[in-house]
């Protein structure tokens, strides 16, 4: 149907793009993860599993990884708790305000990540908006320290930033539910609550899984929010990687951590894809 030349023209650019910008760097990173750094700060191209062994041996690395996963898990849960009701309301009850509300969910995505992160800094800081307000109404007598530079601040900011990512696939899934199924459920005697749990929620699960995956994967790899708002207790694994590639000048160890995270994320995507398939029926 299409000529070979046409097929080649269409296929080649993405293949080149993926090879140059994705596969090659990953392959390089994979190689680096087996090399080491000499005392004179040069990369030694000798192959060993030392970096991976170090990851398991040194407590701070895998503890930071676990903490990152725990932060990402909380962000995921809160994003779903916020995103699902929002998506449900928009899809089923917003009627003619639907488009307007939808835009209002999307618009924050146009605002720079940094601006949003700094905004939270202004709100949560010890002389920030929240603390000033709390003291003004005499709920507290001195600034609450745990608000900023804590895992709490990181979870809060990341939830704010990634809720739209959880919202979108859920909204899409809800929009795809044929409305006559909802009518059929009511017709068969199911109350609105029963209809939600027996029909609407099960049919929205692919969206929930996709949304959860977005929120978890994106927040797991985040390094700006913990950098700006995390403080020492809110450090995440990406900050470790950044410092290993930067000041610490240990690219091989950084590459090993990156590769472990890559494996983790790919495994997760694979798992969530299977889950989505299992729950889609169209």
């Amino acid at each position, binding site marked *: 149907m299409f000529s070979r030349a046409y097929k080649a023209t269409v296929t080649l650019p993405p293949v080149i793009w993926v090879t140059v910008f994705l596969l090659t760097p990953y392959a390089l990173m994979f190689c680096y993860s087996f090399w080491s750094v000499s005392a004179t700060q040069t990369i030694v191209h000798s192959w060993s599993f030392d970096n991976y062994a170090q990851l398991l041996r040194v407590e701070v690395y895998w503890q930071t990884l676990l903490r990152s996963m725990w932060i990402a898990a909380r962000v995921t849960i809160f994003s779903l708790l916020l995103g699902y009701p929002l998506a449900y309301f928009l899809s089923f009850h917003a009627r003619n305000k639907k488009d307007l509300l939808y835009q209002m969910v999307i618009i924050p995505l146009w605002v720079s990540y940094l601006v949003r992160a700094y905004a939270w800094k202004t709100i949560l800081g010890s002389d920030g908006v929240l603390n000033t307000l709390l003291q003004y109404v005499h709920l507290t007598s001195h600034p609450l320290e745990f608000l900023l530079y804590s895992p709490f601040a990181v979870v809060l900011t990341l939830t704010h930033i990634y809720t739209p990512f959880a919202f979108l696939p859920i909204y899409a899934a809800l929009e795809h539910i*044929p409305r*006559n*199924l909802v*009518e*059929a*459920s*009511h*017709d*068969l*005697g*199911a*109350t609105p609550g*029963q209809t939600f749990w*027996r*029909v609407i929620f*099960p*049919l929205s699960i692919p969206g929930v899984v996709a949304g959860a995956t977005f929120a978890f994967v994106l927040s797991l790899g985040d390094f700006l929010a913990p950098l700006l708002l995390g403080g020492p207790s809110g450090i995440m694994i990406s900050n470790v990687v950044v410092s290993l590639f930067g000041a610490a000048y240990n690219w091989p160890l950084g590459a090993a951590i990156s590769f472990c995270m890559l494996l983790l994320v790919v495994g997760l995507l694979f798992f969530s894809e299977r889950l989505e398939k299992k*729950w889609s*029926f*169209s």
Partner: protein
Amino acid sequence: MAKQFGRNVVLRNISLEVAEGEFLTILGESGSGKTTLLRIIAGFESASGGELWMGEERLDLLPPYRRRVNTVFQHYALFPHLTVEQNVAYGLRVAKRPEAEITSRVAEALEKVKMSSYARSKPAKISGGQQQRIALARALVNRPRLLLLDEPLSALDANLRRQMQVELKSLQREVGISFIFVTHDQEEAMVMSDRIALLRSGELEQVATPREIYGRPATAYAAQFIGHTNLLKGDVLGGTVRCGPLAWAAQLPDGPALFSLRPENIRLAAGASAASGTVRVRGKVLTQAFHGATELIRVDCGDGLVLVVRTSGSGGALNDVELEFSSANAVLVRESPERV
């Protein structure tokens, strides 16, 4: 059972009663408001005026899930994430019936629609006709007092459709539940219904049995929509109707009148002279369309009058013919004014 509606725009002055165990068809073209009427009865839409009663119970104030009315949807609306069995059990589950009762009633309902062997299939894995039966079983298992069917056969091919018409009708007799069946297919309506309610642009044109609505159409629209007919515009003067070359006696007041004359009530004239009460007219055959058992002939009788005649179709090519019909078969109908 009594129902009354008044709904601006889509439906006007609808008043309809359905008897216990009756098969009533709401027949109308698309856009006539028939689906809206059904959705009001089911409770998916509310009427802007009027009341809806089932026995002693006022329905229109209840939400759809409190009405003892079930619906078979046009595209079946089976739950894709549930098996056939779970779909049928849905109504009983949400009503929190005991599990043993659910099992036996679901099995019985599946038996009734001959779908027992598909109990564990997902709806996507079965054919349209089978989905249709499941939709029916899912509604009937709840033993509603009234079953609503929204063009349930429209998605099936012609053969399966005829088969389902017969099955549906016999199932309805068996369970004895009142059916309100919505369709745009007049043949389907004729075959299945106890009574037909003909809806046109949101108003009821005629409510009658299929025989009555065919033999004695009340309006020109009813006569034309159900079967073929010849509409004769006549003038009555002193007990005689004149319509082009035709004339017959009728006890009607003077003035213009409209008559419906079915093609099968016109014959090719035989014998020397007309019997009393029959009208004869000569004409030239314009076209002949062979339909197998019958043949439709269009005959120009002069004076701008063209009659369509249904004959047994064994005559071969025709040219000049003499037609006759009994004046009793020319049924007086009301004009159907244009509505928007």
